[in-house]
């Protein structure tokens, strides 16, 4: 396996007693943006959870590698350290724990990641995240849109190799969507971030240019194409794929 690849191969996974992903394969290279679109129930969120190792999901078969590292063999925190980031659809409130505290803890002590504080302020400015939220406990009393900016902010500070964006467009107004989409797009050029953007709607792709679009239905990729595929789906709906 070569460097700069996030490879999902024949992934089968679900919750106990129910297989939801039924042999999903796709490959994202550094600097690329792939969109995964699909109707409700197609397995989009399960994919995000399984990739990051959320408790409650189980892998039944297949492999996921990041630059050749077998992610499925690693606990969640080591997947993150290997370079994977998940922007969650529903970021979780952690009372009493601030953004700067968590981001400082997110990297090994003595690593080449000094200046978290500075990066935090710079990233906040880039995506219009209000400075007064920086000292707040994580996601506590933040609106849906602020939480998504917050996820994007963390992505910018942590600089992962690959990011899975789980419906990052949900709960965002037009301005916030533009800020978030632009920041992610710029990251693909700045450090070669590879993106797997899971979304129900095409509107995210208006602000985040997708090199490849996959349509997910019943736990499998049923169609792959360029950005024109997203337009087709937008026009005709998912009915043709299910």
């Amino acid at each position: 396996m070569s460097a700069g690849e996030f490879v999902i191969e024949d992934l089968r996974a679900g919750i106990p007693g129910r297989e939801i992903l039924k042999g999903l394969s796709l490959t994202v290279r550094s600097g690329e943006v792939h969109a995964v679109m699909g109707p409700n129930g197609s397995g989009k969120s399960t994919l995000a959870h399984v990739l990051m190792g959320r408790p409650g999901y189980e892998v039944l078969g297949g492999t996921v590698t990041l630059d050749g590292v077998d992610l499925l063999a690693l606990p969640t925190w080591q997947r993150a350290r290997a370079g994977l980031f998940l922007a969650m659809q529903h970021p979780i409130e952690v009372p009493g724990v601030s953004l700067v505290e968590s981001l400082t803890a997110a990297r090994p002590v003595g690593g080449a990641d000094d200046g978290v504080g500075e990066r935090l302020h710079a990233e906040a400015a880039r995506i219009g995240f209000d400075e007064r939220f920086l000292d707040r406990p994580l996601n506590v009393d933040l609106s849906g849109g602020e939480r998504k900016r917050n996820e994007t902010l963390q992505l910018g500070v942590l600089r992962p190799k690959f990011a899975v964006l789980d419906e990052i467009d949900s709960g965002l107004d037009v301005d916030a969507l533009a800020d978030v989409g632009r920041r992610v797009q710029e990251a693909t050029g700045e450090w070669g971030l590879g993106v797997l953007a899971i979304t129900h709607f095409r509107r995210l792709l208006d602000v985040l240019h997708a090199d490849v679009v996959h349509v997910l239905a019943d736990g499998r990729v049923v169609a792959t194409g360029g950005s024109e595929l997203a337009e087709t789906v937008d026009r005709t709906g998912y009915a043709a794929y299910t």
Partner: protein
Amino acid sequence: MRTPTGNPVSPGVWTRGWSTGPRSARGPTLPTFTPENAAGLPGSPWLVRRRNAAAESFASSPLPTEKDEVWRYSRIDRLDLDRFQPAGSARAGTDVVALPSARIHALVDALGPRSGLVVTVDGVLATLASTAGDDLLSVGRATDHDEGEALLGTVLVDPHDFPLLNDAFSVDPVVIDVRPGASVVDPVVVVHVVSGSAGTAVFPRTVVRAGSGSTVGVVELVVDAASGLLADGHTAWSPGSEPPPERLVVPVTELEVHDDASLAYVSIQSLGPATWQLAHQASTIGAHATLSSYAVALGGGYARLRTDSALVGDSGASRLRAAFIGRDDQMLDFRTLQDHSAPRTTSDLLFMGAVAETSHSVYSGLIRVRRGAVKSDAVQTNHNLVLDEGAHADSVPNLDIEENDVKCSHGSTVGPVDEDQRYYLESRGIEPERAEQLIVAGFFESIADQVPLAGARDLVGRSLAERSGVSRG
């Protein structure tokens, strides 16, 4: 109206458990807590009479047992009163030498500016100072107060079991009397030092009267000078030192918040690991008055705190908070009563803590809304973090609502560190152990932030962080 959840308990059950019923049984025969010993304590004639009546009453009452509803889950059956004798009964004041005064002064200074200071050592008044003028407040012995006799027992009417024992054996009841309309900027600090040898029983008693329209803060500490549980730069029992002495401490505090007054009250308990505490804090809140109370429980072997807050005036409000951390095999036991008897009253209770190692916590609380307390709003919440497999928390919230037009809600959680929170932090690359530390520290930080007095807030925050083992310093 929010829908009450949980299991409403019939008023009768609680009434029996929560008040003094007729006592048919003859009480225990105790060798030390006798009317004779109570009579040997110093004080003015009215105080001696009062003690005697209480001692007689206690002697003719049965001791509580774990069969009683309000003592369920407790360790009260293991308390052997014969092993203790009341402090102050046979002393010549020589024990005061044992007062580690530098230590206590450092602790008091850690609380920041103050308007007055009271220090008792094993129940005997040792220090008394007030920097606020007489026109604002008086601080002193109940026996030196014109209305001392009337003030004692104004809030805690009809005491039984341990408050009654406090009535019988409290050596120097203290009164903090804030004049109507007075605005006292810095809090009054009361420190009850427990320092006697094993078997010492201490009965601190504090009465706070916040006169109409006054604003005041009080910080009350019940400390074992050697326990080292407060983050004031001193260390706890060192390995190899003598085993901690078994003592009995029965603090009773009465908070009388008159109409339009505002009282902030912070109590901190840092007793030694073999000490029994049976504490009672009772408040009455008048019309448009506010009580903001905050209890911190750190030490003790079995440490119980009963908190009764009676909202007796229109639109009175109480905000009740507690933070606790159990370690070793200690048991921290909280019983609360939010008693609404006037219209438009609000009470907001949040007790949060953690149990580690093989410790045990109990929370049992009742919201009572009496007939006539229309448009009252009561909230009762108890969150318990269970940090180790051997630790245990019981949580029993209850409602007793006699009025229709009210809002009440209660809820509790008992469990380990939240899996979703841990997952969120781990998804950012944080090791599981570190994630748990952050979450536990955050849990305590979020409640330490609510300490109503700034000076105490810092000390409480640091002490909770140290005790929880997740100090960030």
